[in-house]
């Protein structure tokens, strides 16, 4: 089995907070005084100005399946060509969650990381990653514009990373049990569901956003605009919905292999999933269907970032250039089951329909995807600092599961 544990748990943090951004001026004494992403000034970290010779090795922190050297599957190897070409020996450490990534990067022992949107800003704010000189990454020019200089990979127009790929969380079901085929997240929240005890949901506080996303269209009177920016009333409604859903849920999954096994055996018949799990189940001839429901969905957009303490910055830059090169980016996207970041990758995939299947160039599809990001106090609109931060999401998640 292909190991690709990608528990996309949002890191989070709890408790009392320091005012992170010294320069932001909002000195809230005791409450969680985190700075708004747009409002904080990241620590001054120098950017690499010119590319030198490779240091002979590079240490990476990555999602499982992002750095494959043929040891998982002989035909899946984009590390060996890189090593031959650049002389940079690749050492990769697989992290299971965004939080683990943040912790590993804080150790300063790694050169680069494939961070999701929930980890990237925290790394920037913590001074753990350096701005990226995109002029030194040749293939950056071919990256979809829709992925460049986004709130999760840049601050004030300064790039902090190289986009890797993106995808959406899907609604998955057993076609032999669930009829008719659902097209709305409503089926996983329906209190009178005939699938009681066989529903599955993602085991992370960030799943609260999935409930909020559903309420956005199901209960417009709540006025939810962004599922990661929830004020008291909206948050409470989402949590209540999930508490009610808990009676339907047979199992929460955090490990993709567990989710795939459960849907194959029929222990679960309906719930949130990734394309990769659907592929695994289909490979074993399990009757599963999947869709991006009409309400849209949550999803991820990943970014390669360079450590501010990188011992091998040149090799790290070469790696970033390699992983978004048309061929390698196509390989990793197909292996992982996500849309590539490089537009030229679409000609390199072994399945010529791949980019169409994964909507790589379909911005209207990704408009329906709310990328994971870390919820913070500042709502990002005129409501001010009344939104629930991730520590409150985590506490609520423990309560939802009971």
């Amino acid at each position, binding site marked *: 089995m292909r190991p690709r544990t990608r*528990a996309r*748990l*949002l*890191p*989070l*943090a*709890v*408790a*009392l*907070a*320091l005012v*992170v951004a010294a320069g932001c001026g909002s000195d809230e004494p005791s409450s*969680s005084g*985190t*700075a708004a992403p747009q409002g904080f000034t990241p620590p001054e970290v120098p950017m690499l100005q010119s590319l030198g010779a490779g240091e002979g090795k590079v240490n990476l922190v990555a999602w499982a399946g992002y750095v494959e050297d043929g040891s998982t599957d002989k035909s899946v190897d984009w590390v060996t060509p890189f090593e031959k070409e650049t002389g940079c020996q690749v050492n990769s450490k697989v992290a*299971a*969650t965004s*939080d*683990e990534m*943040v*912790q590993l990067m*804080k150790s300063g022992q790694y050169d680069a990381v494939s961070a999701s949107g929930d980890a990237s*800003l*925290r790394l920037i*704010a*913590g001074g753990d990653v350096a701005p990226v000189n995109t002029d030194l990454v040749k293939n950056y020019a071919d990256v979809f514009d829709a992925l460049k200089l986004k709130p999760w990979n840049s601050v004030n127009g300064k790039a902090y990373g190289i986009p890797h790929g993106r995808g959406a969380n899907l609604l998955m079901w057993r076609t032999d049990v669930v009829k008719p085929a659902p097209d709305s997240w409503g089926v996983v929240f329906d209190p009178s569901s005939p699938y009681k*005890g*066989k529903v599955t949901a993602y085991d*992370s*506080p960030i799943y609260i956003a999935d409930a909020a996303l559903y309420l956005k269209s199901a209960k417009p009177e709540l006025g939810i605009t962004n599922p990661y920016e929830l004020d008291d009333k909206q948050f409470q409604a989402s949590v209540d919905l999930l508490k009610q859903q*808990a009676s339907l*849920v*047979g*199992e*929460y999954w*955090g490990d993709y292999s*567990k989710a795939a*096994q*459960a849907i194959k*055996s*029929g*222990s679960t018949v309906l719930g949130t999933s990734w394309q990769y799990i659907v592929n695994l189940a289909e490979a074993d001839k399990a009757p599963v269907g999947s869709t991006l429901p009409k309400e849209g969905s949550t999803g991820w957009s990943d970014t390669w970032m360079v450590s501010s303490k990188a011992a091998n910055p040149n090799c790290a830059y070469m790696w970033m250039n390699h992983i978004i090169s048309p061929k390698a980016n196509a390989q990793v996207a197909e292996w992982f089951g996500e849309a590539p970041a490089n537009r030229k990758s679409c000609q390199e995939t072994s399945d010529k329909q791949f980019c169409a299947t994964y909507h790589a160039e379909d911005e209207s599809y990704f408009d329906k995807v709310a990328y994971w990001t*870390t919820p*913070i106090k500042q709502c990002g609109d005129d409501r001010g600092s009344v939104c629930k*931060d*991730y*520590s409150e999401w*985590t*506490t609520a*998640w*423990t*309560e939802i*599961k*009971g």
Partner: protein
Amino acid sequence: MSAQGALRPLTRALWRRPRLKLALLLSAPVGWLVVAYLGSLAVLLASAFWSTDSFTGTIVRQPTTDNFTALLRGEVYRAITLRTVGLAAAVTVVDVVLGFPVAFFMAKVARRRWRPLLLAAVLTPLWASYLVKAFAWRVMVGSGGVLDWALEPLGLHGPGFGLTAVWLVLSYLWLPYMVLPIFAGLDRLPDSLLEASSDLGAHALRTFRSVVLPLALPAVVAGSIFTFSLTLGDFVAVNIVGGKTQMIGNVIYANVGAANNLPFAAALACVPVVIMVVYLLAARRAGALERL
């Protein structure tokens, strides 16, 4: 001069100073105990009074009792603690009920030459990886698994993923840890006592109640320390077959990993420590620790 000859003065010096010899002998294990064990417990306790920055995830080293306040105020944590302690007790009861007859058979009924074989049989489950066994149980208790199949003729179905499955799996996993201490305890119980009891006219049941049980109780308590503490800290089996069940271990794990809130995890980790201290004190009163 041979190597042995070179060491001779040293040997002599140590022989003359037995205290030095003792100190050299004990310094490594005691150092290990103090630094790695008590030290980490102290760090755990200290970090429970810290907090984390909610955005960058860095640890804020300013003493605060907020973690403990949240722990005591949160109804959910009380429920989880009670559930965990209840499960640990239930697993212990099952293991005593299953383990005692097995141990009694091994120690008192089976022929002596069969003993090594029986001991090996009890230990074989420990040869397989914990994870392999837990995943095997996942398949068995899951929908369409062996349990479903076996219970179908009776009009029943398997437990599915949940608390019952965790109870089953943990009882299975920790059974050898209960059988071995009870076996050791019963082995030390002289057969002559059983004979004397029967000579005095006691029935088997009476002998068991008045002779075997009181003498074997410390061994049972010793075994229960294993099953109870192992269940109290388990989160892997819970994760694999527990469905949506949360135990203390899972919440600690979630706070270390997902929540990146080490201080709160440390505060939570104090809960099983306190429970175990209470349990061990109770076990000491029962005389179990002297007979381990």
